[in-house]
């Protein structure tokens, strides 16, 4: 390792949270305040370090800045694995995002998780997550990325299952881990394909190998799709999206940190990081999966009543956006959206957490444990009671809907421009922008539906309305910080044009070209964006306005009856309300048959194969032994062997009469014997 500042800071950023994790696991409970200050201290230091790195990146002003450091992890001669860090502008930006959201979550949880039975455990797992996430971000090779990738899955498992007494929580945790593993198999096969051709896991060496033509064509396409499968699992893309909505069983700050801002973005980060190695075919798959997911998830979000579920599907949809943009080649736009989305979506989750927290307390006061504190149908009119939450969430809703002056507008606009540019060059793929714009309209619609149902209108449960209060400072502080960061200015500095994404971000983070020979997608798209930029902007503004307007008339003004339309479109409504029956179908056609098959296999193994076949050998031997035994005993032993005994005994019975006890007769026999011997001798 070099004495380089970036590498040293990265090391600290990586290992401080895991140190906090270790302390919390072993002695957390015995520390004052259950040790929450240890965790918070650790993440605040990482935040400071991340800011320092970020600042030096900004002042260094080198778009191609990149540093690597590695060490030998194992070495068998030829087979060798080196693990290491890659620090460039994307890494630094991502580190800052992770550190920031993580810090905010730690602070938010102070009050949200207050009095929880496993308070120190909770902070420990947050530390583990932060560590693993930073590991993914810093990895310069596939193997350590895969390792941290799985660790992120575990911390997600542990945190979703934090309230494991509830079956739904432990189910959701298991589902999240296993669904992720499905994707990870693809990821692993992708790694195998790349390694078997190039013999290296390190990104830069992989790029060199591909550029040199050692790996290409179909194999590379499949490798790319394999890696993307990993991203699909983590970023909850169709058809592996099923775990993310269920993951909302975890504590809300966790949802904000992992299932909105960072962990699920890891998939996007993976494809952004590895963009240069994807072939055009692989990218097309990525684009369609992402685009379809964006639209598909948005249509589910429209009908959900659980505030967190709406946000969860919204997250799936937004991740679809990012993936879509990577697929179309405008991958920097996707990364941009990742950053802005992290801020406003985390903030939205904190907002929902704040609302739920308040509902929970109000319901507790009434000793009502039946009413669902997350159901928006029980809310309404909270604007007056929770002004900070309201305004913060409003800003973020505007951002996610793509309204100018807010960050979401810039990044979403860039993505939509990218799809438009892609479609204009490949008219066959006109569906991609349709997915994008369609999702944009629906996003605006359901986000305002959420805001209006929660904060406007009449209170739906007047009996608890008086007990609804604004959340404490620990919870509103992250809301304020993150909603502020959803304003365009933070991304366009040093410029102040709210309609252009020109700024430090676009200057510092530039697309690197694909290394796949003959693939110039990124280049073309970048060219194309300039041509379609204004169309895209206009269109996106129109669809956003449309969505907001519809929502406004339907839920605020109630000019259009939402229930009436739901009835009219009953089949479609049902499909969306039940999430297209994915869970049910997976259960019926995948899990249950597989479990049955397993039971059958176990039955064959134990009750048929072992009992009859293996034990059959024993039985045959036993039968055979029975016959040989009979032969042996009745035939050999009883007749021949015992026969000898019997005849000996009979002879003895006769000869015993020679034993007279008279010594003199014995002597006589002896004498006769001697005489006989002498006679024999003489003839």
């Amino acid at each position: 390792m070099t004495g380089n500042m970036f590498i040293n800071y990265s090391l600290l950023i990586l290992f401080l949270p895991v140190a906090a994790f270790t302390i919390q696991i072993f002695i957390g409970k015995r520390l004052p305040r259950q040790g929450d200050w240890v965790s918070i201290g650790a993440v605040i230091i990482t935040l400071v370090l991340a800011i320092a790195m970020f600042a030096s990146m900004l002042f260094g002003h080198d778009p191609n800045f990149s540093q690597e450091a590695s060490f030998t992890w194992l070495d068998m001669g030829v087979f060798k694995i080196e693990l290491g860090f890659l620090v460039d502008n994307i890494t630094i930006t991502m580190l800052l995002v992770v550190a920031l959201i993580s810090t905010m979550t730690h602070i938010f949880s102070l009050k949200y998780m207050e009095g929880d039975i496993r308070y120190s455990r909770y902070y420990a797992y947050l530390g583990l997550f932060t560590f693993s996430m930073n590991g993914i971000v810093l990895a310069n090779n596939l193997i350590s990325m895969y390792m941290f990738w799985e660790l992120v899955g575990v911390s997600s498992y542990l945190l979703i299952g934090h309230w494991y007494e509830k079956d739904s929580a432990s189910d959701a945790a298991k589902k999240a881990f296993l669904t992720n593993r499905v994707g990870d198999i693809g990821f692993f096969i992708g790694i195998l394909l790349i390694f078997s051709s190039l013999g290296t896991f390190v990104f830069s060496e992989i790029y060199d190998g591909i550029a040199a033509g050692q790996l290409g064509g179909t194999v590379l396409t499949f490798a790319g799709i394999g890696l993307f499968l990993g991203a699909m699992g983590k970023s909850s893309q169709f058809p592996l999206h099923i775990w993310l909505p269920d993951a909302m069983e975890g504590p809300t700050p966790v949802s904000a940190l992992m299932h909105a801002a960072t962990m699920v973005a890891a998939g996007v980060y993976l494809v952004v990081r590895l963009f240069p190695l994807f072939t055009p075919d692989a990218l097309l798959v990525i684009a369609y999966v992402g685009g379809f997911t964006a639209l598909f998830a948005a249509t589910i979000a429209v009908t959900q009543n659980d505030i967190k579920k709406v946000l969860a599907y919204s997250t799936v949809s937004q991740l679809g956006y990012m993936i879509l943009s990577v697929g179309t080649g405008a991958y920097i736009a996707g990364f941009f959206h990742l950053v802005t989305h992290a801020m406003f979506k985390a903030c939205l989750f904190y907002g929902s957490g704040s609302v739920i927290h308040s509902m929970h307390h109000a319901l507790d006061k009434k000793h009502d444990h039946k009413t669902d504190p997350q159901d928006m149908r029980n809310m309404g009119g909270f604007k007056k009671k929770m002004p900070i939450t309201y305004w913060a969430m409003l800003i973020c809703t505007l951002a996610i809907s793509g309204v100018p002056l807010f960050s979401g507008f810039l990044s979403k606009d860039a993505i939509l421009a990218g799809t438009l540019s892609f479609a204009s060059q490949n008219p066959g793929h006109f569906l991609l922008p349709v997915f994008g714009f369609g999702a944009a309209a629906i996003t605006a619609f359901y986000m305002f539906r959420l805001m209006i149902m929660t904060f406007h209108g009449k209170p739906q449960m007047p009996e608890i309305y008086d007990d609804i209060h604004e959340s404490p400072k620990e919870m509103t502080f992250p809301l304020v910080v993150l909603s502020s960061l959803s304003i365009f200015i933070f991304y366009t500095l040093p410029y102040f044009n709210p309609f252009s994404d020109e700024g430090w971000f676009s200057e510092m983070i530039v697309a690197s070209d694909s290394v796949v020979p003959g693939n110039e997608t990124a280049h073309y798209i970048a060219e194309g964006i300039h041509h379609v930029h204004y169309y895209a902007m206009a269109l996106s503004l129109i669809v956003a306005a449309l969505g907001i307007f519809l929502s406004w008339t339907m839920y605020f003004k109630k000019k259009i009856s939402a229930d009436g339309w739901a009835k009219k479109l009953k089949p479609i409504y049902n499909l969306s309300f039940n999430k297209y029956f994915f869970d049910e179908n997976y259960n019926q056609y995948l899990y249950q048959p597989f479990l049955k098959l397993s039971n059958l296999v176990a039955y064959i193994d134990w009750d048929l194969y072992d009992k009859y076949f293996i034990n059959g050998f024993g039985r045959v031997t036993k039968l055979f032994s029975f016959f040989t035994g009979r032969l042996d005993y009745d035939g050999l032993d009883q007749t021949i062997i015992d026969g000898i005994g019997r005849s000996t005994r009979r002879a003895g019975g006769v000869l015993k009469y020679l034993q007279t006890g008279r010594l003199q007769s014995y002597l006589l026999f002896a004498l006769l014997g001697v005489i006989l011997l002498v006679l024999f001798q003489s003839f």
Partner: protein
Amino acid sequence: MDNLNTYLSIAAILFSLGMFGVITRRNAIAVLMGIELILNSANLNFLAFAKFGGMNMSGHIFALFVIIMAAAEAAVALAIIINIYNNYKTINVDDVRELRQ
């Protein structure tokens, strides 16, 4: 007359008499006397061979051994007979048939 055959014939007769006594007598003392005869027939043989067979003094020494041994044997045998008498009140060997089948 002074040749080996004479001595051996006498010794053989002596042996046969002794053997006859041992086998036929019922009285334990008489059996013992028969044994003495057998031993002495052996002595006679030793001495005859010492004289005619060139055994030098070995024959004499063996004869002396046999006499000593006969004395010891007589002592032991008489002690056994006394014990038998004490236990069975008889010295008739036919009445002491514990080893009978």
